[in-house]
């Protein structure tokens, strides 16, 4: 039973990188996590297994939303392969697998299974809220810092002005096309990002009015340092 779950986890993990649709990839990753959680439940780590399933279900839903928002071809209507350095990566992956498997197969693995009468979840609860509370609380504070960091990184309007302040050179004319190199040009992928005129244009215009144009792309750091607030 554990063998089947582990095989399913590996198979669906492999499916993540061969399916044509980003959403399907996200759900196969979810299947892989669910299989690992099920294997954990079978190996009497019931709390960890169930927590894995719950957490990863939510996480993969969020991931699927990001897939649809960011990726080309979220529905899998066309064949998709977006890889680079493919042979090197395959070699690295195969090497990692073979190396770890060799270590597993040659090592003298311990054999001390959990005694069947152990109250695993009960003991874990006492441990979490007792001797190991510091670890638990540290994880909680880390997650709080993550929330703050995610909001700060992804918010459009930062403390020192617009989030893409300074990322684009000012236009040659008022509200015109950004001068100089266009960062997107070397991308060479299949999505059309709506051009730099209409999407980025209004944001650029606002930031140009707010701070002087003369520093071009470099004045974000100065603005941050000079602002006393």
């Amino acid at each position: 039973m554990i063998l089947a779950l582990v095989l399913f986890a590996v198979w669906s993990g492999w499916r993540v990188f061969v399916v044509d649709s980003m959403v399907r990839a996200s759900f196969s990753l979810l299947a892989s996590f669910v299989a690992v959680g099920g294997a954990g439940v079978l190996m009497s780590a019931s709390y960890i297994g169930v927590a894995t399933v719950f957490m990863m279900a939510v996480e993969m839903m969020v991931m699927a939303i990001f897939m649809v928002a960011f990726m080309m071809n979220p529905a899998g209507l066309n064949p998709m392969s977006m890889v680079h350095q493919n042979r090197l990566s395959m070699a690295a992956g195969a090497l990692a697998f073979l190396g770890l498997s060799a270590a597993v197969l040659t090592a003298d693995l311990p054999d001390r299974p959990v005694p069947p009468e152990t109250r695993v979840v009960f003991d874990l609860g006492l441990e979490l809220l007792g001797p190991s509370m510091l670890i638990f609380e540290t994880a909680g504070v880390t997650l709080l810092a993550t929330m703050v960091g995610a909001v700060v990184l992804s918010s459009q309007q930062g403390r020192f002005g617009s989030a893409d302040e300074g990322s684009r050179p000012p236009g040659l004319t008022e509200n015109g096309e950004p001068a100089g190199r266009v960062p997107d040009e070397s991308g060479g992928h299949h999505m059309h990002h709506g051009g730099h005129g209409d999407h980025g244009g209004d944001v650029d215009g606002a930031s140009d009015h707010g701070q002087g144009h003369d520093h071009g792309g470099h004045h974000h750091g100065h603005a941050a340092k000079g602002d006393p607030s």
Partner: protein
Amino acid sequence: MTLTIVLLGASALIGIGLYGALSQQSFVMLMMGLELMLNGALLAIMGFWSQGIGGPPEAQLLAIIVMAVMAVEMAIGFALVVAVYRKRQADVTESLGTLKG
């Protein structure tokens, strides 16, 4: 025997995840590779905990830490993807040739 199966599966997951993290061009797929590696690590931890060391309760905290790492990686990763997309209109790694903000 169970431990061997579980650890072999975990190393396969880590290998596949490494392949994905190195080969995928889009940031989201790259993060899926990282998640897959953490998945393998979680499987190995649970296997060792339940079959190798007789299930002491404090050892499960390592699995909890790995889950916290997964959540942190995903939240900060997506925030970075949003920030990078906003600045550079980039959603594949090739579009980012420089670290300048």
